[in-house]
């Protein structure tokens, strides 16, 4: 029963946000979509310990795939999500074949390079992707044939929250499974996993593919909710910020991804509206504060405070 508490809290917060900020639904939807992206990163980085700065590769591919699918094939939102997830999974699987063998700086650089190559391809094939102008003209049908995307973004928000719920539940199950335990083992000590007979690279490719599917899903949601896909979906900054949000919240337990994203994006939003020119100071300081003061993220904060109090006694 206790394990259900976070889900209830999540639901209450989502509903409260809906009624408290009726004019910020577009921003809230963006937060929810980013949460899905950061969750995807938590699986591969937080659980399996693969440092990557290339989550945007799958996010962007999911966005373009869903956008193109809606324009040329079918405007059904859920089918679009499936297509986006599939695109993310394919990109992750193919790049995972060589990425999962690298470590350290080489791994970071390879993940960045894959993203840059995809961005450049999207840029060059502007006849299909719209290039620097972006892919416009995405018109979505009703969700499940019932709910229409409205101008205020109510449907978009509720739709995104529902998808987020499904993603959290699925990832919770996966992390609690033998496969998830094996990933945590790999995150702790890949050498030991090999020694007990686990094909580590294969498990990592599977995890990266799943993570890619979720990231692709997030990209597809972004494309659907903004009705536009720009080259920015492949930006390095997106991958870097996803990493910041994850570590800010705390890695490996999913809830950290949600908390980190909410806090980071709120600070970002407030700072940039208060001072549109110098908000980067705030973000920079926030990032450094996380590294030096709460290395285990906001989820680890209660423990950290407890230890401090014990020392004071």
């Amino acid at each position: 029963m206790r394990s259900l508490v976070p889900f209830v809290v999540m639901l209450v917060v989502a509903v409260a946000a809906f009624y408290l900020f009726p004019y910020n639904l577009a921003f809230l939807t963006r937060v929810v979509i980013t949460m899905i992206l950061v969750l995807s990163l938590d699986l591969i980085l937080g659980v399996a310990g693969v440092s990557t700065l290339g989550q945007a590769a799958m996010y962007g591919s999911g966005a373009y795939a869903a956008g193109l699918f809606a324009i040329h094939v079918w405007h059904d939102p859920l089918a679009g999500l499936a297509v986006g997830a599939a695109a993310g999974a394919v990109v992750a699987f193919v790049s995972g074949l060589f990425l999962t063998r690298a470590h350290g700086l080489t791994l970071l650089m390879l993940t960045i390079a894959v993203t840059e190559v995809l961005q450049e391809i999207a840029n060059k094939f502007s006849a299909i992707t719209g290039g620097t102008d972006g892919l416009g003209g995405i018109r979505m049908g009703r969700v499940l044939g019932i709910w229409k995307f409205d101008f205020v973004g109510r449907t978009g928000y509720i739709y995104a929250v529902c998808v987020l719920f499904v993603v959290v539940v699925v990832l919770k199950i996966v992390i609690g499974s033998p496969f998830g335990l094996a990933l945590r083992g790999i995150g702790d000590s890949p050498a030991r996993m090999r020694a007990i007979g686990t094909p580590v690279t294969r498990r990592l490719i599977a995890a990266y593919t799943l993570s890619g599917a979720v990231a692709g899903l997030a990209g597809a949601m972004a494309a659907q909710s903004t009705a536009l896909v720009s080259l920015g979906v492949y930006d390095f900054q997106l991958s870097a910020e996803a990493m910041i949000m994850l570590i800010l919240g705390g890695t490996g337990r999913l809830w950290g991804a949600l908390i980190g994203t909410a806090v980071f994006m709120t600070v970002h939003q407030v700072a940039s509206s208060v001072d549109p020119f110098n908000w980067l100071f705030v973000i920079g300081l926030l990032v450094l504060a996380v590294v030096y003061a709460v290395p285990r993220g906001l989820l680890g904060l209660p423990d950290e405070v407890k230890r401090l109090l014990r020392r004071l006694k």
Partner: protein
Amino acid sequence: MTTLASILLDGVAYGMILFMISVGLTVTMGLMRVVNLAHGGFAMLGGAFTHWAMMSAGLPFPLAALAALIAVVILSVPMERVFYRPIYKMGELPQVLATIGITFLMIASVNYAMGSSLLSIPLPKVMSGAVDLGFRTLPTHRLYVLGAGVLVIVGLFVLIERTRFGIRLRAAVDHPGTAACLGIDTGRIFSLTFALGAGLAALGGILGAELLPIDAYYPLRYMILFLTVVAVGGMGSVAGSFVAALALGILDTAARYLFPEVGTIFFYLAMIVMLGLRPQGLLGRA
């Protein structure tokens, strides 16, 4: 033939800039085992200080550049103490994060002080203009870049191979534990190396401003470029980063000449192939 010569000339000049900026990064990353994403910030600070010294203080280019260089070196020492010391012992992830944070702070600082527009560095008469090579003209500036690049590599070679500091540096890179046991003050070596690397980055930033224009977002825009040189060359290898910088410089220039429509794809594909074949870099140790 002339195209080939042009590619080589421009490519080598570009490679020299990449080398000057990245060499400090490769040594510090090899020495302190720290993933540093903020290194390009020192190149930007060099350029930004030079811009300010010329525009606001009215100094001539050589003096402005020298002053900027010294300023960056002096600034880098406390920065290493305050920001970098605590993260040497941390994992790779906190290091990535911390140095992204430092990058953001550098960008925000320059943005606050000088705005987000281009920070031009007008060249003096002797460096502007062009030299006629018969088959084409070469901007005189490139000659200075080539000259500076050669001086830096020769200087580094002498410093690393022929001085006491160099011996200690190599010892600290190859066997950090042993070096500390032998009474080598690794903390001081870290400081000096970091300052040297920052200074070289500033020099590269100033001289390379024609090719990689200076503005507040410079460290983020070219971060991947500099890190690529380090990764491809092999962390900690000066010679490796020299080879990698020249190779990548020539490759990128060749791609721009021969297949201008392909853009930067070529650069990144080359990097993927090189790192796929040699994950530890060209001259890095496994």
